[in-house]
């Protein structure tokens, strides 16, 4: 579509442009007075406490998600920052913690349990129930086969040395205590956590 402009019309338009821009230049700017730069983006977001997933320092984080948890609102994490009430970090976060939002949204993040069956090179998605059942089955089978009640001298040891347990870094004292109870009550001796990282 071509716009028809007469020569006279073109000059008129140009003159109007010059006049209005010079008016604006002299302070007669036709503009709304409301000046708003950037609105605060967390006003009605939902705030959830958590602990940073990375290292064993276990800094507290506040996770902000859009939506007020009404049944039709699907929440979405939009911002993560330090938890000022957390005794470990008091609101501070290292560059990894400060960038947690991109960790959550990373396309390469593992989002569900997967299994690589013996002899294959393919990772296969399985359900959480299936994953927990399989792990429980493996634990039971291995423990039944290798649990040692007494050593050569006949001392009671009740230990199980063929399976190990690696716990997470982001554990509070309480969750660390519970993990310890679960693992030791099975007789497991090889037990570590990411606090060494």
């Amino acid at each position, binding site marked *: 579509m071509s716009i028809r402009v*007469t020569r006279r019309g073109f000059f008129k338009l140009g003159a109007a442009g010059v006049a209005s821009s010079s008016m*604006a230049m002299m*302070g007669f700017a036709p503009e709304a007075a409301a000046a*708003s730069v950037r609105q*605060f983006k967390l006003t009605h977001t939902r705030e959830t406490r958590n602990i940073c997933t990375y290292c064993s320092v276990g800094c507290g984080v506040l996770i902000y998600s859009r939506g007020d948890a009404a049944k039709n609102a699907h929440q979405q994490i939009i911002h993560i*920052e330090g938890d000022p009430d957390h005794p470990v970090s008091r609101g501070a976060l*290292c560059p990894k913690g400060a960038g947690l939002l991109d960790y959550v949204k990373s396309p390469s993040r593992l989002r569900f349990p997967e299994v690589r069956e013996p002899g294959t090179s393919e990772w296969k998605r399985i359900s959480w129930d299936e994953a927990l059942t399989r792990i429980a089955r493996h634990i039971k089978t291995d423990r039944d086969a290798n649990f040692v009640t007494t050593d050569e001298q006949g001392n009671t040891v009740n230990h199980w040395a063929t399976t190990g347990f690696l716990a997470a870094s982001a554990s509070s004292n309480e969750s660390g205590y519970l993990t310890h109870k679960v693992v030791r009550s099975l007789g497991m001796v090889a037990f570590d956590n990411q606090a060494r990282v």
Partner: protein
Amino acid sequence: MTNPQNIVRRSATTTTPPRVREEVEEVAKLIDVSKCIGCKACQVACMEWNDIRDEVGIVDGTYNNPTDLTEHSWTVMRFTEHENPAGDLEWLIRKDGCMHCAEPGCLEACPAPGAIVQYANGIVDFDSDKCIGCGYCVTGCPFDIPRISKHDSKSYKCTLCSDRVSVGLEPACVKTCPTGCIEFGSKDAMLIRAAKRVDDLKARGFDQAGIYDPAGVGGTHVMYVLHHADEPGLYAGLPKDPRISPLVGAWKGVTKPLMSAILGITAFAGFIHYVTKGPKEEPADEEVFGAEGEEGYLRDTRGEEAAATVRDPAKEEER
């Protein structure tokens, strides 16, 4: 939520902004360079809060990453390896970014009304919606901070998280800093804090330790504690006595008013000419552009008009 009442200065605007609220306390960010470990958490927190992400760059042989401020990186760590007179290596790491000058060169230079504003609390903010991308703010800034985006031709820089400060929070970089190198509070409180840090540094053998709050730009709302305050240039070229470029004064004080006046006089003369002489009589067969091939539009209508004027008196006679 930025209350327009709290804007005390506005670019390219001659009307006086509201000034009755005098009790607004000035805020300041204090960066204690001696405590910075260069972890760049502030860079990450800045990007996360402001919803900007820079592209993955190339290592230039230093720890500077990104190597310079960009429209996506409003703050960067600048690493300097300095060998002091005793022969020891000092690793000077300065968090670079907008200094939020009391007399901002960018705002002085900006020709777009309201594109740069200063709030009563001292924050200098860019309203990018009104930015015309001319780049005068870059010329006007004594610290070389604003960056023009190649994508949208608008200027960007640190806002001192004006959106956070307006609801009573500290800026994102301040909150995340693990070593407590960046602190935030009222300007008075930060000056007291800085003085304490300077005393501490002097006690540790840094005789020239001092506060960087340059008077040439009326003081700043981002201040540094430097171990070598006598040589700020050591810290990746921090200017010793920053001032607004004289070019800005020449443009705003002389050239612009003069040219505006000439434009105004020309327009006025044109108007007077129109009133006294009237409009130029339009020839009927006006040239038309952009309508080739459309016969109806190019048709000479003089004949029809003439016929119409002839017909009218005839009708009157019939009555």
